[in-house]
């Protein structure tokens, strides 16, 4: 087998040829004959009652074909959410109707009210401006704690409360946890904010909807991480279109980060509009629209406590979090701050007792949902800031307090007190590795050198573990999931031996077309160039759940592995027949089927051809063709883990933080393609540093998004980042999937923010500003300066 194409090879990404030469084909690149354009009228107030909506004048404008409003969708379903969280009192979450277009009320800035369909985009935009609308502005509720007070403005009248759920995890532990705090030697308390993030995928969301009035067939081409999920939820729950009549395609997609998981209002509206005007309808979000319509991330306000004994061992953790849901529930809105967040309170530590309380709150802001890491970054940030503060308070080294409390290598599989079982890991190994990479022992000399330049140098740690590879269906079903999270693959061997792999996952930056081919090439011993990966089309690929939650390799890759095993098993029957040997004696190596212990062999391509040319099979004994499908449902999550060290230099005169160095030692289990994995580490860390230092979604008291453009929303750029030193050589393979892989997509965004903030606090402490115990993200220059001088 060509070693440079199999599992573990740093094969260059085949998809980059088209991406880097301008040949990528994104939704907005696709145009249809007779195409029309949609532009949306959106609310400019955060909360209001629509007193008048008159589209007559706009409908008479040049080129206008139709104007849709909430009335056009009243008889249809709303946008659904995929998880039923039951709260600590046994009550189901509150689920307000989420209309496709506003029905009499608007509840966040940017909420779509009407859609104009016109011959040109400019005509549609002109007509939107001509719609006569009178919105009576109502008081907006933006602050979460105010939202749950009695007498607060209600985001949804008739729902009875802005509190969607009050979740306890695990409720039965609460008394024991509280008791542990009563008797603890030391208690560390920290209150912090995990700020609102705006995803900012490079490609804005877009959709192109078509309807064939001859067949009743709809086709939606959309920027989705999971076309089958869109087909299912939009078809079955919103528009009442059976799967067979709805074809959903996600072509090249320029980044998702979670924000392209959800079924969106615009997709449903366009699909319906295509039937109304009986022509293709296209919409591409402006960047301004993206800021107020893409599902946003994070936005937690948390109080957290850690109880320690006299030796610095962790006894118990308890947290109380207000999690902002925004105005409506999107697809993963309620699972993100609960089951994806709560277990992260455990981290890589042996802490025996936990209690996590999360209050999900409706506000008049853009809906919040999964954003790279989805719940786990929030939990990890809290915990690692808390551990950092505890170490300072009891005077213990930051590496030591972590090492001491880690789950020990010999304890795996480790049953955590938080319902999950860590199947494998070695947290001591990654910590040792990062200490070596970062020359922790030499820090003092670097600090002194920085001090000579007038800069305060600090070092920060983050040791973390995440539950990813979503998800074992039985377990999540018992926790309220309304779907399974298995994955599918079909391996279609073509008659001349080439292979097309159909995967239910979707690649929007992850390099699946390269890495997945490596799996099959490795199993068959053939060249990866013979293998094509097909994804993103509900008519081609078997039903699959898509790409998010670092699941594509662990779950989707395992489905590909299993389907390839089935192909090999069938191919061996053909080979046995052709070689006149017993099937049990057939071995496959380097693309050749051989009769064990003989020199009789036949090449892969000859077997493939024989499968499709059944001229001399024994009568009735064999089914022609070579194509197999597997559905893989994982038996557990996977648990990637890592140890990160960040060194910063702080300019005390301006408060400016420079990342001097960043080191990541990760355990992703087995690695399919180390170059792609390193790219994911780099991207994740950059995104985490963006959150730690720069990005901030800020609403004013009226619910207006103040950081609604790149003039005020600070994205990290190359000049803001150092060269990262990343490593994934500490490998403990996953024990329950056939590839032994864990998942790397979210790791950097989960592990890096606390390392950065801890480093800033460390720099200030070492620089004589020990009164600063915490600075909320983003740790901007003005916040650091204010903390020093406050």
């Amino acid at each position: 087998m060509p070693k440079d194409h199999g599992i573990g090879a740093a094969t260059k990404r085949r998809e980059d040829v088209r991406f880097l030469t301008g040949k990528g084909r994104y939704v907005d690149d696709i145009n249809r004959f007779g195409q029309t354009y949609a532009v949306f009228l959106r609310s400019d107030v955060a909360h209001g009652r629509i007193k008048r909506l008159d589209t007559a004048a706009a409908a008479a404008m040049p080129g206008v074909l139709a104007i849709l409003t909430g009335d056009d969708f009243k008889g249809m379903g709303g946008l659904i959410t995929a998880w039923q969280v039951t709260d600590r009192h046994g009550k189901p979450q509150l689920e307000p109707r989420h209309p496709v277009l506003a029905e009499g009320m608007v509840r966040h800035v940017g909420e779509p009210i009407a859609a104009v369909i016109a011959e040109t985009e400019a005509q549609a935009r002109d007509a939107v401006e001509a719609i006569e609308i009178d919105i009576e502005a109502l008081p907006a509720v933006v602050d979460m704690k105010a939202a749950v007070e009695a007498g607060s403005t209600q985001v949804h009248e008739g729902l009875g409360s802005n509190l969607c759920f009050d979740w306890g995890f695990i409720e039965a532990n609460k008394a024991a946890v509280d008791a542990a705090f009563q008797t603890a030697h030391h208690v560390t308390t920290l209150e912090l904010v995990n700020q609102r993030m705006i995803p900012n995928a490079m490609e804005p969301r877009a959709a192109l909807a078509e309807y064939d009035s001859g067949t009743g067939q709809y086709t939606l081409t959309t920027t989705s991480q999971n076309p089958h999920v869109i087909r299912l939820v939009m078809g079955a729950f919103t528009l009442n279109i059976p799967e067979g009549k709805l074809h959903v395609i996600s072509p090249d997609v320029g980044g998702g980060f979670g924000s392209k998981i959800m079924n969106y209002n615009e997709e449903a509206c366009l699909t319906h509009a295509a039937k109304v005007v009986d022509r293709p309808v296209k919409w591409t979000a402006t960047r301004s629209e993206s800021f107020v319509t893409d599902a946003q991330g994070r936005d937690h306000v948390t109080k957290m406590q850690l109880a320690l004994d006299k030796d610095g061992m962790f006894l118990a953790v308890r947290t109380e979090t207000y999690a902002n849901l925004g105005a409506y529930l999107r697809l993963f809105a309620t699972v993100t701050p609960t089951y994806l967040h709560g277990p992260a309170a455990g981290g890589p530590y042996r802490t025996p007792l936990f209690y996590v309380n999360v209050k999900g709150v409706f506000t008049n802001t853009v809906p919040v949902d999964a954003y790279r890491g989805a719940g786990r970054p929030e939990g990890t940030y809290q915990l690692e800031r808390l551990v950092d503060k505890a170490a300072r308070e009891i005077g213990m080294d930051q590496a030591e307090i972590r090492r001491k409390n880690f789950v020990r290598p010999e304890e795996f599989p480790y049953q955590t007190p938080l319902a999950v079982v860590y199947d494998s890991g070695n947290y001591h190994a990654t910590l040792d590795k990062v200490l070596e990479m970062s020359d922790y022992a030499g820090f003092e000399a670097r600090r002194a050198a920085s001090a000579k330049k007038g800069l305060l140098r600090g070092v920060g740690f983050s040791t973390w573990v995440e539950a990813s590879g979503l998800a074992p269906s039985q377990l999540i079903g018992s926790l309220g999931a309304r779907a399974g999270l298995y994955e599918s693959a079909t391996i279609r061997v073509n008659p001349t031996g080439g292979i097309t792999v159909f995967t239910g996952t979707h690649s929007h930056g992850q390099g699946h077309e390269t890495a997945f081919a490596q799996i099959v090439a490795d199993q068959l011993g053939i060249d990866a160039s013979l293998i094509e990966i097909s994804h993103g089309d509900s008519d081609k690929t078997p039903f699959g759940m898509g790409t998010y939650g670092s699941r594509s390799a662990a779950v989707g890759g395992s489905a590909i592995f299993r389907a390839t095993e089935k192909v090999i098993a069938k191919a061996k029957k053909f080979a046995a027949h052709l070689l006149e040997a017993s099937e049990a004696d057939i071995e496959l190596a380097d693309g050749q089927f051989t009769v064990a212990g003989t020199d009789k062999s036949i090449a892969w391509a000859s077997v493939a051809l024989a499968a499709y040319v059944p001229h001399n099979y024994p009568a009735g004994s064999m089914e022609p063709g070579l194509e197999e499908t597997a559905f893989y449902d994982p038996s557990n999550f996977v648990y990637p883990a890592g140890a990160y060290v960040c060194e910063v230099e702080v300019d005390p005169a301006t408060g400016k933080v420079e990342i001097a160095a960043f080191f990541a030692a990760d355990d992703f289990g087995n690695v399919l393609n180390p170059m792609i994995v390193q790219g994911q580490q780099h991207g994740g860390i950059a995104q985490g540093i963006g959150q730690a230092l720069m990005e901030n979604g800020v609403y004013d008291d009226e619910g207006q998004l103040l950081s609604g453009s790149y003039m005020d929303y600070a994205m990290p750029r190359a000049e803001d980042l150092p060269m990262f030193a990343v490593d994934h050589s500490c490998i403990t393979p996953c024990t329950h999937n056939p590839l032994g892989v864990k998942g790397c997509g979210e790791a950097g965004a989960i592990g890096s923010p606390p390392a950065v903030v801890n480093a800033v606090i460390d720099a200030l402490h070492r620089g004589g500003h020990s009164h600063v115990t915490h600075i909320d993200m983003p740790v901007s220059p003005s916040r650091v300066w204010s903390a020093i001088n406050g």
Partner: protein
Amino acid sequence: MHNFDFAKPSTLAEAAKALQADGAQALSGGQTLIPTMKQRLAAPSVLVSLTGIAELRGVCLGDGGLHVGAATPHAVVAKEARAHYPALAALAGGIGDPAVRSRGTIGGSIANNDPAACYPSAVLASGATVVTDRRRISADDYFQGLFTTALKDGEFVTSVIFPIPQKAAYVKFNQPASRFALTGVFVAKFANGVRVGVTGAGNDGVFRWAEAERALSADFSASALSGLKVDPAGMNADLHGSAAYRANLVKVLTGRAVTAAG
């Protein structure tokens, strides 16, 4: 963007005439105006491009110092002013990104007078003269607050004449999102005294820091500023920094500019 008519005159006289039209708007590099029009926040009926007028382009030494044509892009100033006025060239080379520097012009910048733009600090600190199609205006009279200048309707900048100081430097602290100046300070030392122009910080746009000018005129060193305080009352405040923070930056960056000027 709404539809508009487009005029590209090749002489000053044609430009002046074109700008008399109803709803006419001068266009230079378009780095602010075009995005504003794309968002439909501005809808001029006629755009009058000034970049086709040869005499508005270029950098040369002349009476009173360095003459910079109003339609000269930042990237050209960064290159061609370097030998004559390195601090000005460095400022131009630090505006925006390469695309902005290739299109954006000094005339467009100071006509717009964004309170966080870089150029106004250099024009003010240099005691430059703003030349228009009809008169000469001293820098001290030209800048009149946020997005407000001495320009009358239809009047447009043709060049800026910079007296060349003995020493000068510009130090900018970026607003993290826009990379405009959260605060930027231009310090210029002339034979008859020091001028300090501050952009980004003031709540009424670019301003001179008079106390610092006095202290630095007596002693051109960062330590001369040690006893001074900037009053936060005159400072801008937003997501990216309080008034007190900006007041601090004014002082810190002035000191750093003096040190950089040498």
